[in-house]
């Protein structure tokens, strides 16, 4: 019974999501709204603004470095949680 209920629930989600996928902006279209001034500046100015050839690295560690500090912190908190859990018992 529970399994059928879960399947029904997931089917509903699937239908809604597929309807959304049909409406979504076409994948890979250069005219998509995501290709706005944000990636343009990353791609055109990152060399002179950060000096890195790999644009991903310049986003990761310069433009959005605070995210990456958070990411390093996630690893740190995982260590803290795992070690405290393993030592406590």
């Amino acid at each position: 019974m529970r399994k059928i209920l879960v399947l029904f629930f997931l089917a509903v989600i699937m239908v809604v999501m597929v309807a959304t996928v049909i409406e979504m902006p076409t994948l890979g279209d250069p005219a998509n709204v995501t290709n706005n001034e944000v990636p343009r500046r990353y791609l055109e100015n990152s060399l002179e603004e950060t000096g890195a050839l790999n644009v991903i690295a310049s986003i990761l560690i310069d433009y959005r470095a605070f995210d990456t500090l958070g990411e390093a912190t996630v690893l740190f908190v995982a260590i803290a949680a795992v070690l405290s859990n393993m030592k406590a018992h």
Partner: protein
Amino acid sequence: MNLSQHLPALIIVVPLFFAFVMPLLARWCKQWCVPTTLGAIIFSFGAAVKMTFQVMNTGPFSYYMGNWPPPWGIELSIDYLTVFAALTINGVGLLIIWYGSKDLLHELKSEVIGWYYTLYLLLMASMTGIVITNDIFNMFVFFEICAIASCGIISIKESRDCIEAAFKYLVLSVLGSGAFLLAIALLYMVTGHLNFTFMAEALPDAMVLYPKNLLVALGLLVVGLGVKAALFPLHAWLPDAHSSAPSPSSAVLSALVIKVYAVAMIRLLYLVFPRELLGMTPVMEMILWMATLAIIIGSMFAIVQDDIKKMLAYSSIAQIGYVFLGVGLMSESALVGGILHIFNHATMKSLLFLVAGAFIYGTGARKLSELKGIGHTMPIPTIAFCIGAFSMVGIPITSGFISKWYLALGALDVGRPFFTAVILISSLLNGIYYLPIVVNAFFSKPEEAVKEPKQLPRQMLVPLTLLSIGVIFFGIFPSLILGIVYRAAQLLLGL
């Protein structure tokens, strides 16, 4: 270098920095752990106070990480709501860990206490980050830190219930974050921005072109944040997690962590999504009804509990309902009541959990039936409990009364007296489960278990006293905090 100009970054980074140092301190100079933790949180609290004055004098401002302006870099936004939340988090968090510095010694094994402070500092930093950031992906990263750290301070205790509760909490948190990340993807796809301000500008256009994307994203956001904030049908993890954890963890989880997600939800719904979209869908109405059910059913569950911490945990489900009631009613007074309740519930629920911890510390008893007559043997914690309980019920001159008053007024403002009735009924229900404890504590003969309690050390008594004074003080002089809450509500509603 002008330090005060960088306070928005330092309020997050200083606790983070000392959290990174903490394992080294715990290994080689143990006695420095507590002063470092307290110092870092005092710094953050001071920064929050300084920024409050700045905001009240000169208006909201923002801070650009790495000097990159918003659509490219990460922006921290300091406005009335964020600074209010940062103040609450760091102020209450400071008192809780001050209390915890003694209480943890008997609840945890000595080799993990250093890790507890690490996790606590990370939790503080991430909560401040969640409320202060103006970037949705940055918020997601802080969500994850917050989720793991808050599970970590549950599973650190040596008991199998804690492990099980932490696992349940982790799984549901991860589901919530997954829904949130999917929502970010859907929103980014149609707006091209991650910054709240820029997203808000792009959304009205996107709403015309891609309505389904936005509706699905809205649904995912409400569900994802609802799971984390324990909004009514999604609260299954809360009672176990909050009752089995060490008392300081219960206090911080109930008082602060679930509130932080409520603040995130308020900011997203009011500042990012266009008002027409919210009007088009019944999402606010749904939040309203979920909040109502939370208030009634949470209180009912709390009545039948015998374990004091479990009762307080169920009461938290009811109390988060008040916050969301204020969110859903969408009137100025109701929003003021909801936001004010974030602060008021943080103080009174942390007070109650810490008193419960003090009872357990003193007598080892956690059943309500064993705590009869405790007022004779542990007078100060019991008086503190009375103050917290009165505030929960909403008796005048306590702070709980003020926020309920504003919520009731807000419900009348929008012409829905039904919700005023809900607030009254829930006060009655709160009375049913809090007042017998108070009465039994003072007017029954002491039970065997509570006859000769351990004396509470000063580090535990002072935070309890300060919190009870705070509950009374903000009940008598609410204007001190209402000024900033009013401005926050006006900013959110665009008045």
